[in-house]
C-alpha cells in the first residue's frame, strides 16, 4: 500500500510539474538590435507627405513567383509582415517567411547557410552592425534602386550601408540608445530629500555615468523588487553596452591599426563599472542571461528605476495594458562619461538580397514595398525611428498634435542624439565574432570570476589573434 501511495505521489508530482510548465508570459520582443546612424541622419523635416499608397497600382510582373524570406520576428516587428498580403495581392507573387528569429539567431543562421551554400533566400533581414560579415554573399543593390527612390532615405544611413562602392542594405528603421527613467521615482519628494542627504546633490535624471551609478545604488531596494538598473547581459548586447560607455570614458574598441584597445585604463574602468553594479546587486542577478526583450520587460514591469534603452520600445512602454510604467517614465540623452563624451550606440535594421537569389527583381520590389513611406510610417507609429525624411516629417506633425508631451519630446531627443551622440561599431566582418570573445570575459568580470584588467587583456589577446589570422595586420 505504501509503495502504491509513494508511486502515485511521485507521478502526481510529475504531473504537477508538467502542468505548471506553462511557459512564462512572453516578453514582447522589440528592437533586438540597436540601430541607426551618425551625423546627418538627423531627420531634416521634409515636405509634408501625402498618403502615398505603398503598392502603386497592380504590377503582375511577378505573378507566380515565390519569394523565400528570413526576417526578424516577435512583438513589434510582426506588424510590418501583416502588410505583405497587400503586396502579394497587387503583384501575384507569394512571400514565404521560411525563418524567423531574433537578430542574433538570424545572424547565426545566415552565416552558416551562406558558408554552406544552402541559403535559399530571396530577401533577408540585415543590420548595419552585421552586414559586413555577409558581403561576399550579398547582391549589390544600387542597380535595383534609382537615386530618385533613395533620395528620401537618410543619406548617412545609406552611406553606412555602403562598402566597397556598393549598397548592400535598404534600411527599415533606425535606433539609438537613450536613457529611460521612472518619473514617479524621480519626482518623489521623499526620495529627493533622502538622495540629497546621502549624495550631496539634487536627484535629477542622470547627466553623467557617475550619477547614473549613484541613482542605481540609491533606488535599489527602495520598493519591493526594485533594482537600480539593468543591461542586456549577453551576446553582442553586453559588448555593445560596454563599448558605449568605453567611448564615453575616452576609450576605443580597436585602434587605427585594428589592434584591440579596449583593455586600456578607460576599458578597465568601464568593466569595473559593470562589476560594481553586479557585485552590489544593483542589477538583477540573472542580468547575464537577458537580451533586449528581457531588460525592456523588467522596465515595463516597474522593476527598474533607470536604464539604457532603445526608442523602438516606446509604444510598448506607453501601453497601460502591458506595462506598469505607462505614463510614468521619461527619456533623457545618454549620460556623459569621464572623457566628457555622450555616446549613443546606434544602427539600422535593414533588408538585403542574397546573391544566390533567383528572383532578385521581385525581391527588390518587395523591399521597396516594405520600406515604402506608408509601411515605414506605420512602423514609426509603434515607436521605431524612421529612416525616411518624409516619415520623420509626418511623425513630428503627429506628435505636435498629441496630448502627451513625451510623444514630441522623444523625437526631439532622438534628433539631437542622432546628430551628436551617434557612434556605430567598427564596420568589420569580425565585429560579431569579436563580441563573442569579449562578452564571456565581461560576464566573468561582472560575476567576479576574473579581475577586470586580466579579463580584458585575455580578451584582447584572443581578438588580436583572430584579426591577425584574418589578415588585418598584413596590409
Amino acid at each position: 500500500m505504501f509503495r502504491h501511495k509513494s508511486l502515485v505521489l511521485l507521478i502526481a508530482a510529475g504531473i504537477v510539474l508538467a502542468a505548471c510548465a506553462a511557459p512564462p508570459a512572453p516578453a514582447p520582443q522589440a528592437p533586438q538590435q540597436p540601430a541607426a546612424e551618425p551625423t546627418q541622419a538627423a531627420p531634416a523635416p521634409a515636405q509634408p507627405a501625402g498618403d502615398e499608397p505603398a503598392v502603386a497600382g497592380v504590377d503582375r510582373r511577378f505573378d507566380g513567383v515565390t519569394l523565400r524570406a528570413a526576417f526578424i520576428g516577435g512583438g513589434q516587428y510582426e506588424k510590418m509582415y501583416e502588410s505583405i498580403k497587400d503586396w502579394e495581392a497587387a503583384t501575384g507573387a507569394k512571400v514565404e517567411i521560411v525563418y524567423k528569429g531574433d537578430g542574433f539567431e538570424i545572424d547565426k543562421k545566415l552565416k552558416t547557410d551562406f558558408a554552406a551554400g544552402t541559403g535559399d533566400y530571396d530577401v533577408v533581414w540585415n543590420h548595419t552592425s552585421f552586414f559586413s560579415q555577409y558581403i561576399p554573399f550579398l547582391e549589390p543593390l544600387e542597380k535595383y534602386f534609382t537615386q530618385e527612390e533613395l533620395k528620401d532615405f537618410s543619406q548617412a544611413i545609406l552611406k553606412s550601408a555602403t562598402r566597397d562602392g556598393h549598397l548592400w542594405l535598404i534600411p527599415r528603421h533606425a535606433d539609438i540608445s537613450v536613457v529611460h527613467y521612472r518619473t514617479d521615482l524621480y519626482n518623489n519628494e521623499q526620495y529627493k530629500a533622502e538622495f540629497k542627504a546621502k549624495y550631496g546633490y539634487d536627484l535629477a535624471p542622470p547627466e553623467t555615468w557617475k550619477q547614473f551609478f549613484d541613482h542605481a545604488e540609491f533606488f535599489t531596494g527602495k520598493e519591493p523588487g526594485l533594482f537600480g538598473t539593468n543591461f542586456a547581459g549577453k551576446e553582442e548586447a553586453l559588448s555593445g553596452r560596454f563599448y558605449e560607455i568605453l567611448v564615453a570614458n575616452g576609450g576605443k574598441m580597436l585602434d587605427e591599426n585594428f589592434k584591440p584597445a579596449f583593455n586600456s585604463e578607460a576599458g578597465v574602468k568601464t568593466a569595473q563599472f559593470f562589476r560594481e553594479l553586479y557585485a552590489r546587486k544593483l542589477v538583477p542577478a540573472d542580468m547575464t542571461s537577458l537580451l533586449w526583450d528581457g531588460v525592456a520587460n523588467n522596465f515595463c514591469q516597474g522593476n527598474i528605476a533607470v536604464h539604457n534603452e532603445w526608442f523602438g520600445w516606446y509604444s510598448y512602454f506607453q501601453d497601460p495594458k502591458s506595462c506598469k510604467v505607462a505614463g510614468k517614465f521619461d527619456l533623457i540623452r545618454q549620460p556623459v562619461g569621464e572623457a566628457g563624451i555622450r555616446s549613443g550606440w546606434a544602427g539600422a535594421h535593414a533588408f538585403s538580397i542574397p546573391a544566390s537569389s533567383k528572383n532578385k527583381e521581385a525581391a527588390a520590389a518587395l523591399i521597396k514595398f516594405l520600406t515604402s513611406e506608408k509601411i515605414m510610417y506605420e512602423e514609426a507609429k509603434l515607436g521605431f525611428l524612421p529612416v525616411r525624411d518624409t516619415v520623420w516629417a509626418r511623425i513630428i506633425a503627429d506628435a505636435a498634435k498629441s496630448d502627451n508631451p513625451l510623444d514630441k519630446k522623444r523625437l526631439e531627443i532622438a534628433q539631437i542624439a542622432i546628430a551628436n551622440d551617434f557612434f556605430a561599431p567598427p564596420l568589420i566582418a569580425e565585429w560579431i565574432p569579436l563580441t563573442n570573445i569579449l562578452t564571456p570575459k565581461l560576464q566573468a568580470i561582472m560575476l567576479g570570476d576574473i579581475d577586470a584588467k586580466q579579463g580584458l587583456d585575455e580578451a584582447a589577446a584572443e581578438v588580436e589573434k583572430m584579426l591577425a589570422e584574418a589578415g588585418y595586420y598584413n596590409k
Partner: protein
Amino acid sequence: MLAPSLAIIAFVVVFPLVYSFYLSFTSYTLLRPIPAWNNFANYQRLLQDPIFGQAFLNTLLFMFVTVNAAFLMGLFLSQALARTIRGQSLLRTLLMVPMMFAPVMVGFQFRWFFNDQVGLVNNVLTSLGLLNGSIPWLVDRWLAMFSIGVATVWMNTPVVAIILLAGTLSISPELYEAADVDGANSWQKFRMITYPLLGPFITIALTILSLDVARGYDIVSIMTGGGPAHRTELLWTYVPRVAIQESKFGLGAAMSFVTVIVTVAFTLYLFRQLLKSRIL
C-alpha cells in the same frame, strides 16, 4: 540491395564525417569559407584552450551525475510500477509525459522554474517562508549545473523506467515464488533475482541515457546557453559557440572530432558491458 544501402550510408554518414574531418585540419571560417590547410594547428589550439578543458570536465561530471540520478530514479519507478496492480497502464502512460516534451520545451519550462525573479522555485520557497530574497539558480556555477541536471533527469528518467519495467515484467514469477518459499524478503528478492536479471536492460538503458545526455544541447542551450561566463559550458554548447558564433569552423570541427572519439570510446565500453551481461 547492398550497393544502394552502401551508397546512401556513404552519402549521409561517411561524406559529412570525412569532409568535416578534413575541415578540422584547415583554417576554414564562416566569414571566409575557403579551406586552407593548417596541419594540426586546430588540435594544438584546442588542447591549449582552457574553456575546452573546462567544458570537457563539465560534460563528464554532468554525465556522471545525471545518468546515475536518472538511472536510480528510473529503477525505483520501474520497481514500484511493476508491483502496482491496479491502474498500471494509466500510470505507465502518465510516466511517459516527460518523454512527450521536446527538449527545447523542457529547457523553456525549467528556465522559468528556476528564474530568480519570477520563477516557480523561488516563489514556492518564498511562500513557504524558506527564502528571503532570491536564489540565482541559473547564474551560480553549481546551482546552474544542478538546475540543468534536474531538467535533464526529469526528461530522461521515464525512458529508463520504461526499459527497466519491461525487463522486470519479463522475469519469470516462478523465481519470486521460489524465493518466497525460501523466506526471502523484498530486498533479498530484488538483490538476488531482479537486479542481476535486469543486467542487459540496465546496460541498454544506460547506453541510451548516456548518449542522450552526452549529446544534450537543447536544454543547456535554452536554460543557460553554456553561460554565464562559460560556467555551464558543455562540449556541445562550446562547439557551436566556437564554430558558428566565433565563426571558427575548422577549430569547431576539430573539437567535434575529439568529442566524437571520446563518445565512441564510451559507447564501445558500454556495448562490451552489454555483451558481457548477455553472456552472463
